């Protein structure tokens, strides 16, 4: 097992190096290209001995029917230099009336992760027969250990019974979905979809929606509104209500940025260390490869930890929503 993992890591590092060599672009460009979303997805298979590596190529032109323009030419938006919106060109396009729903590279990676997750967790299901009391097989046992941990340690302790049962499936899916996306990025030629703000934002929205649903379920509309006043004297409510409303959004915002930044940083660090070989001296390969391997293993850990943290915090937020009913009752 150990040897296999090590070989995988080393191979990953080597493949990436090959990619640098073959690309002809400068290392920072390659790194930025790797960590950014893209309209195209190039899957290059390293193949020694031939001129050009075999390549799978995807461009989202084929999904052009998923793009709508409010008026012709809305998508050919040229932002002026220094515009604040140039940091978020996609949002600028949407604001301009270019509604682009075409799948991108990160969506491809997410779908691959989702397919792997479905294969792992749902395909040949061993729980069809509920009368079988003893789980058999590696996968069934792994799944059971994960699900029971989430049920007892995450949902049970942060949400509390009996509401925990309602949110356990969501937390299980969130954990494994994020974990699969995180770990897919460690396989050469793939990437982490969670290294994109849009993806982590979408994931945090699910937590946000569930948290608000939990609050409404437990406190009711009036209790929810009352909670927004924070229990301060009436003349302070004009200050308190906006703060509380902002507070509702800071939690999912923190989830979004934490996961995104961790995954992005991991990949960037790994690539920058490797690109020392190209930026400084070829001799640096003897330092860069062992360090890259170390970062690779760290990334396995980080991927797991971040999936856990996201799930854990989701459970905490939902638990706070569930507890809102008790607070409302106290006021």
């Amino acid at each position, binding site marked *: 097992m150990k040897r296999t993992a090590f070989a995988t890591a080393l191979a990953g590092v080597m493949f990436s190096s090959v990619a640098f060599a073959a690309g002809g672009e400068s290392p*920072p460009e390659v790194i*930025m*290209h790797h*960590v*950014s*979303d893209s309209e195209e997805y190039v899957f290059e298979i390293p193949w020694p001995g031939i001129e050009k590596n075999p390549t799978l190529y995807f461009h989202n032109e084929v999904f052009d029917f*998923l793009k709508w323009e409010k008026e012709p030419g809305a998508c050919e938006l040229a932002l002026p*230099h220094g515009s604040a919106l*140039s*940091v*978020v*060109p*996609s*949002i600028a396009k*949407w604001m301009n009336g270019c*509604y*682009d*729903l*075409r*799948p*991108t590279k*990160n*969506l491809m990676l*997410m*779908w691959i992760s*989702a397919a792997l*997750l*479905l294969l792992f*967790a*749902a395909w040949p*299901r061993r*729980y*069809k027969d*509920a*009368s*079988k*009391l003893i789980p058999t097989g590696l996968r069934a046992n792994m*799944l*059971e250990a994960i*699900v*029971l941990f989430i*049920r007892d340690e995450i949902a049970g302790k942060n949400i509390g019974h009996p509401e925990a049962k309602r949110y*356990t*499936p*969501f937390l*299980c*899916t*969130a954990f494994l*979905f994020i974990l699969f996306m995180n770990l897919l990025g460690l396989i050469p030629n793939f990437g982490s979809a969670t*290294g*994109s*703000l*849009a*993806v982590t*934002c*979408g*994931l945090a*929205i*699910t937590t946000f929606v569930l948290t608000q649903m939990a609050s409404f379920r437990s406190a009711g509309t009036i209790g929810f509104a009352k909670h927004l006043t924070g229990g301060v004297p009436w003349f302070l409510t004009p200050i308190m209500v906006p703060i509380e409303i902002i507070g509702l959004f800071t939690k999912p915002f923190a989830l979004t940025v934490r996961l995104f930044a961790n995954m*992005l940083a991991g990949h960037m660090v790994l690539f920058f260390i490797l690109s020392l070989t190209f930026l400084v001296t070829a001799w640096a390969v003897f330092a860069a490869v062992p360090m890259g391997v170390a970062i690779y293993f760290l990334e396995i850990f980080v991927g797991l930890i971040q999936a856990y943290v996201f799930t854990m915090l989701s459970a905490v937020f939902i638990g706070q929503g569930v507890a809102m009913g008790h607070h409302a009752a106290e006021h």
Partner: protein
Amino acid sequence: MPALVFAATFMDVNPGLVFWTLVTFIIVAFLLRRLAWGPLLRAVEGREQKITEAIESAKHERAEAEKLLAEQKTAMTQVRQEAAEQLQKAQESIAKFREELMAKSRLDAEAMKAEAARAIEEERQKAVLDMKAQAASLALTIAERLLEERMDDAKQKQLAEWFANELGPRAKA
């Protein structure tokens, strides 16, 4: 503006990707809920319930067994006690019976002894009287024969009475 280009490439939030993330997540969550978590959690809960039930029933059965054992023990003790009592009673009754029998037989024997003694005494008295009579008549006969020649009737009679009186007490002793 390379710095801005860098920023623009990964700080972007593509609304289309947010949309697809939500769609994908909801589909995956739904599928996994139906195909994986639901059956898995049901199986686990069923197992937990069965184990709890098994433990409960084991406890119950053990309590039952202990109760039965205690009952058995009580019954045994009782039976043993009863048997001992019965034995003692039997022994007592035997002893009593023996005593009664002994007393009775002793009485019988005494009665028989007394009867025998009485009969012997009676026989002896009879025999003594008999002997007395025989001795008297014998003596008379002898005396008659002796005195036939020398005495008359008067002297004879006087002598005979004297004999009888002298002999009587001696015979009695």
